[in-house]
C-alpha cells in the first residue's frame, strides 16, 4: 500500500499525530498496519489504544506484541462502534485505500471526538510531473505499486480532501503538509502551495457543531 517503515525510525506523520494526541486519551487507529503508531502513542502518551487492520498477518503481529487490534476493515467494521467511543479516531495513510472514503470519514467523526486523517497528496509536484511527462500513472516512493496492483482506489489531493471536509461538515482544527524531506510546510503558505509541495498531509477534524 505504502512504503514500509524504516526500522527504528518513526514516520513524520506519526510523530505529528503523537504530538496532537492528549496523554491518556482513548484512541482508535483504523488501518493500524504493524502497530507502529499505536506503539508510539502507548509509549509516549499512555493512550488506551485500539486498532483495526485488514491484513491477518499484521493483526497477529500486533496482538503478539501486546496491542489491542482486531482483524477488520474500515468500510465494513466502523459501523459497529457507538458514537463518541473514542477521543481520537485515526486514519493514517489509509483513506485512499477505502471503498467509500466519505462514509468512512463520517464514521470517524461520529466515533471519535476528533478525527485525525493523514493521506498521500496526489497533487504533489512529483506526481503531477510524472503524469504530465510520461503520460502514465505515477509511481513514487510513497505510492510504490503499479496501478493494477495498488490497493489505493481513491487517491486525492490536499484540495480535494479539504473539499470533502466541507462536504461532510467537518471542521478543520489543524492541517499540516510535509515535503519530500519530511519537513512541515509553513502554515502561512497558501493552500495551493501546500497542494504542490506537500507530499503527504495530516488533518485534525471535529464534527461541526460538536464541542471540542
Amino acid at each position: 500500500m505504502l512504503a514500509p517503515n524504516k526500522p527504528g525510525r518513526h514516520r513524520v506523520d506519526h510523530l505529528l499525530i503523537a504530538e496532537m494526541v492528549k496523554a491518556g486519551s482513548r484512541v482508535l487507529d483504523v488501518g493500524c498496519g504493524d502497530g507502529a503508531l499505536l506503539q508510539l502513542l502507548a509509549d509516549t502518551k499512555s493512550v488506551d489504544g485500539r486498532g483495526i487492520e485488514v491484513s491477518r498477518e499484521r493483526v497477529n503481529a500486533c496482538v503478539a506484541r501486546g496491542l489491542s487490534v482486531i482483524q477488520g476493515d474500515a468500510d465494513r467494521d466502523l459501523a459497529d462502534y457507538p458514537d463518541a467511543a473514542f477521543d481520537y479516531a485515526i486514519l493514517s495513510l489509509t483513506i485512499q485505500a477505502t471503498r467509500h472514503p466519505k462514509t468512512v470519514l463520517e464514521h470517524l467523526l461520529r466515533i471519535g471526538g476528533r478525527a485525525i486523517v493523514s493521506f498521500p497528496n496526489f497533487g504533489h509536484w512529483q506526481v503531477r510531473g510524472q503524469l504530465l511527462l510520461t503520460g502514465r500513472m505515477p509511481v513514487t516512493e510513497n505510492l510504490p505499486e503499479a496501478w493494477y496492483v495498488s490497493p489505493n482506489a481513491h487517491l486525492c489531493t490536499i484540495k480535494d480532501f479539504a473539499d470533502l471536509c466541507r462536504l461532510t461538515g467537518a471542521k478543520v482544527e489543524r492541517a499540516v503538509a510535509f515535503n519530500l524531506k519530511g519537513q512541515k510546510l509553513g502554515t502561512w503558505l497558501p493552500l495551493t502551495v501546500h497542494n504542490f509541495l506537500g507530499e503527504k498531509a495530516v488533518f485534525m477534524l471535529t464534527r461541526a457543531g460538536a464541542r471540542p
Partner: protein
Amino acid sequence: MNTADPRELLAATDARMLEVTRPSSECIDIPETEPLRLDCAKLLAPIRIAYKTYGTLNANKSNAVLICHALTMDQYVASEHPVTRKPGWWEAMVGPGKPIDTDRLFVICPNILGGCMGSTGPASINPATGRPWGLDFPVITIGDMVDAQVRLIDRLGIDQLFSVIGGSMGGMQVLEWAARHPKRVFSAIPIATAAWHSSQNIAFHEVGRQAVMADPDWCQGRYLELGKVPRNGLAVARMAAHITYLSEEALHRKFGRSLQDLAAKTFSFNADFQVESYLRHQGSTFVDRFDPNSYLYITRAMDYFDLAAEHGDVLANAFRGSKTRYCVVSFTSDWLYPTRESREIVQALNAVAANVSFVEIESDKGHDAFLLEEPELFATIRGFLNAAATKHGLAHTRRGH
C-alpha cells in the same frame, strides 16, 4: 465392534469410576446448606468440584488464571491423566515458560459440573437415593457450570481472575464468566467458540445422543446400576463428533484413501481404510475415559447456550460496561465454530467499545487446531497475556528461568 477382553473393559471402567467417586485431583465440597440454583430453577446440593492447580498464587491473589475445558476434556490440562496415563491436554500451552506461564501465573482448571472426572455429574451418587444420579440429574447449562466455578474461586479466596481462558465449550464458559461476573474477569480469551450454538451443531449433538440412547446397554440411563456400559453407542457418538473437529483437508492429508495394513480391499465391512481404523480407535479409547450420561448432559448444555437470548436477544447487552480485556481467536478451517461466529462476538464487543483483540489463525487442522501446536496461537496468547499482565501490575520476573 469391541473385540477386547471383557475383563479388560471392566478394569478400564473401574479405573474411570474410581475417578468419579475418589478423584486423584484436589476437590472442594459444597454442602447441602449452600445449594446451587440452576438455570432450570432446581436446587443442586451437595456438590463436589474437582480441580487441578499449577504454579503459585501470589500474595495479593492477582495472578490466578482459570482454564475452562471443552466437552470431553477435564482438569488435567498440564499433567498426566490418571486413567489414560496420557500427558495433559494442553501441555504445549500451559506450564513453566509456556504461553500460559505457570512460573508467574497460578492456573486453576476445574472439571465442569456434569463432568465425570470427580466433579458432580450424572455418574456421581445421588445422596437422596444412594445410587448413581443417571437421568435424575438435573439438566444443566453453561451458566450453571460457571456458577459452580464461582464457588470454587470464592473458596480459593480469589476476588478477580487475571484471565479466564478456554476453547470450544471452554470458550462459552469464558463468555458466560465475562457476562455474569465482569468485575471478576480482568481478561478473557475465548478461542474457537461462539456466543450461541448453531443449528448444525445441535444437529450433530443430537446424532451423538441418539447413538448413546439407541445402545441397549444404555438401559434408560441406568447402566451403572445394572453393571453395563453402552460402549458401542458412545463410541459411535465420538466417531461422528470427531469428524466435526477435523477438516476435510486435514483428513485427506492424514489418511487419503490409504488402506489399513492391507494390500487390497477385503470386500467386507472391516476397517479397510485407515480413516475407519482411526475413527474406531478414537471411539473405543473415548469410552474408556468418559461417562455416557455425562456426554448427554454436557452436549445438551452446549445446545442450550445462547448468550444473546440471555440478554434480550442483543449480544452486546451481555458485555455493556465491560472493563475486561478480550482476545477472541478463531481458525480458518474450523467449520464447527467458524470465524463468522467469532466475528459476531467481536462486533458485539465493539458495539460497547470494549477492549478487544481479534485474531483469525490460518490452519488446515479444523476445530482441533486450538489444542495443537500452532505457533501463531502461542504467539498471540503469549503477547496478549504479557500486555495484560503489565496492565495488571504483574511482575515479569520469572523464577528459575
